[in-house]
């Protein structure tokens, strides 16, 4: 199970990007997602699914994620999330990188 030890951020607020901030959650808190998006009504649930899937693939269970989305594609959301996790001290599974 991967865990993070500190707060970290990746991405930008430019168009087509997403800024992801991750912080360690208390044990048992689960995956808590706070999402802002210019396409929240259309794609909010899809973005949350990508964030949750990425966490589960990496074995992260207790984490707080803030995502400020500017219309990022799935691959960008995934890449920025992995970068934030890596910066926060998670040891990522190589196959995903």
């Amino acid at each position, binding site marked *: 199970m991967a865990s993070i030890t500190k707060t970290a951020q990746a991405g930008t607020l430019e168009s087509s990007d997403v800024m992801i901030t991750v912080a360690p959650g208390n044990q048992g808190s689960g995956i808590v997602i706070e999402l802002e998006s210019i396409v929240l009504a259309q794609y909010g649930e899809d973005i949350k699914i990508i964030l949750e899937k990425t966490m589960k693939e990496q074995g992260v269970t207790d984490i707080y994620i803030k995502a400020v989305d500017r219309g990022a594609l799935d*691959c960008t959301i995934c890449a920025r999330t992995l970068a934030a996790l*890596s910066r926060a001290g998670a040891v990522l599974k190589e196959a995903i990188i």
Partner: protein
Amino acid sequence: MDLRRSMLFIPGNNPGMLQNGGVFGADSVILDLEDAVAPMEKDAARFLVAQALRTVDYGSSETVVRINPLDTFAAVDIKAIVPCCPDAILVPKVESAADIHQVAAMIAAAEKPDQTPVKIIALLETPCGIVEAYQIAKADPRVVALALGAEDYTAGLGAMRTKEGTEIFTARTIVINAAAAANVQSIDTPYTDANDEEGLLADTQLAKRLGFKGKLSINPRQIDVIHTVFNPSLNDIDWAQQVIHAIRKAEAEGSGVASLNGKMVDLPIVNRAERILHLAELLGLMGGEK
């Protein structure tokens, strides 16, 4: 023959540009982890380029990743990027055959068992790299092209970079000759003033006259001009067809040498004509003729 008339750089940490890289019609897109990415963002760019390679459709464009130099992040770049199946790796600041051996070994170690072998394009941008051009081109079968990076090279010379390019003339001809001797392609340095279309045209025409097979590009607006120059013209195609017709007629008459408009047609001329027709056929410029 792989077409590399235009090779377009795309910043590796810019999702908007990465996701649209395939729409410009460049023969190659170069997803850049080196100069276009700030030192603090190298890790994030690596994740982004890896994801882009796996999910973005770059159409008919060859996918190339410019990694960081061997003395910085090359090893970690190769480990992350090669399993995502780029067509080629552009290695910056190559200075010796040993550099290529090192990169080729790292690529081999990172490749998946069923993966198409990843090619290497060597970017020569130092005086040492130019001196070693032929050895670099011959260093490994993965090497398919030499590219010239003139900005760093002129800095290494201590020369001023000019639009005329007098200061890089020697380097250009060395790269072209080394590439031709090693039977790989030669790719010219980018024209860095994206707003000067006339300058780009003149510089690309010079590159083609000297023997380059393509040109690096730093802006999608440059691609059409570059393609126009490197495409065979209708006159070229017409001349080539006449040459082939003349030599076939001579062969049918039992002679190995033909004449076209009073000029001798021998093997080098025929080879040049065949290259033009092959390129024209690849580009669909033959008007339905096969």
